């Protein structure tokens, strides 16, 4: 567009919009990050200092399918976002507890202790620090050979 000069007013206006757009971009990214953040929650029915494990209980996370836990059992569920809904139904007296718990952004691994949840005492949801967190789940030897042509399926194009 030679010769078409944009008036300073329009230019300022556009600058504003572009800045706004940048903000929106960052906003979206954080939104995706926050709402999409996935957590692995270990649902634990072991005895704790305060309360002892429940004899039998049905647990549903975010209205998902129900997990049946007996005393000392542990199971895991993956949840997404900032909070989770837990619904437990104790076999013994059929009491139903429904709780909404906030998920910390930082941790990927959380431990939910049902007894303390039932007892409603101190935070039932705590960061889980696995004993062998450092050791990766599966081993995988890696060497540059994996990249070289011989190993690749016939469809590989040349990688000089």
């Amino acid at each position: 567009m030679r010769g078409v000069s944009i008036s300073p007013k329009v230019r300022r206006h556009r600058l504003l919009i572009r800045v706004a757009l940048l903000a929106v971009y960052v906003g979206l990214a954080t939104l995706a990050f926050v709402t999409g953040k996935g957590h692995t929650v270990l649902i634990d029915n072991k005895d704790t200092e305060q309360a002892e494990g429940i004899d039998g209980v049905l647990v549903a996370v975010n209205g998902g399918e129900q997990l049946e836990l007996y005393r000392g059992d542990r199971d895991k569920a993956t949840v997404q976002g900032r909070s989770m809904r837990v619904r437990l139904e104790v076999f013994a007296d059929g009491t139903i507890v429904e709780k909404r718990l906030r998920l910390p952004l930082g941790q990927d691994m959380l431990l939910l202790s049902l007894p303390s949840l039932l007892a409603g005492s101190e935070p039932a949801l705590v960061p889980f620090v696995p004993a062998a967190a450092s050791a990766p789940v599966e081993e995988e030897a890696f060497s540059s050979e994996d990249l070289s042509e011989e190993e690749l399926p016939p469809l590989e194009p040349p990688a000089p």
Partner: protein
Amino acid sequence: MSGKRSLGRFFTEYAVVIIFLVITLASIKPSGLSLVYIVQEMLIRLGRNSFLVLALLLPIYAGMGLNFGMTLGAMAGQIGLIFAINWNISGVQGLAFAALLGMPISLAMGWVCGAVLNRAKGREMVTGYILAYFINGIYQFIVLYLMGSVIPITSPAILLSRGYGIRNTLNLEGVRQSLDKLLLLRLGPFALPMATYMVIALLCLFIIWFRKSKLGQDMRAVGHDMAVAGMSGIAVDQTRIVAIIISTVLACFGQIIFLQNMGNLATYNAHDQTSFFAVAAILVGGASVKKATIPNVIIGVVLLHSLFVVSPLAGQKLFGSAMIGEYFRSFIGYGVIALSLVLYAWRSRRETERARESLRGGASGAVAVGEGAP
């Protein structure tokens, strides 16, 4: 022109498509696959690949040929995904996050690619191809050596046992098919990933609209004749760069869509095939180096992939070896690209000759080019 010539024209025009159609139809029978199965596969693969193939259109409009440099965008998309996995962001948000992260990277990559191609006018394709390899080297350096050592990677699960560098294959558990599943329409025996289709449709609308825009018009002008476009004041180089940038960014999104459907990411090889499949598809669809349309893309994806689905089994049945089918399909892929490039180069030479022949002998109306300034 005479009917005979125009018929011949038609065949050279659509030689690739015709050949391909024949081969595919011929190998459906021996493959022994049910039509339902094949159709379902097509529906899936349309969602998986169309976006990537559409990314090729703009550079073709801008006369830069087939953008083999789209691979750069694919790598950007993969880096986005790696981080999404690293922070364990799942679902559609994960994809969105990857796309948002990949976008600035692919912007930069596209700019680099465009600038390089401007220095290699007339050799765009081979240059783009080599550029893809070059950047691939840098990508590997970053992902294999810097990630985990310089670039912080929090999740040990995606790191190599040696403590830095990303694993060969990443499981995209969290985001697997989250876009496809978002709006899955069941239609009799078929499942249609409507959300993915919508995204693709949106892109198509954008491209159609873009052709109507001033920038699109400039691109066409540049594509037809850089010199004239330049003389009329169009910023030729800049326009070309923009074309490549858009294509690269689209390729970035396309790769993310592709991978979410695949469900896992071959960190170091996933992008190797991107441009190959995309280019083969668009050419099979009847596009040429200078001319391509959205229908070309759709037809191409369907044709190419239907062959890719049936050929291994056909090979198995006919030659008793699935490998033959495997080889055969990549032979076809490469062959198609070669063939249509040859046909194009050969045809364009013929066109110019025909154009000049009309001026031979005592013909009236001299040549349009003067001897220039003495």
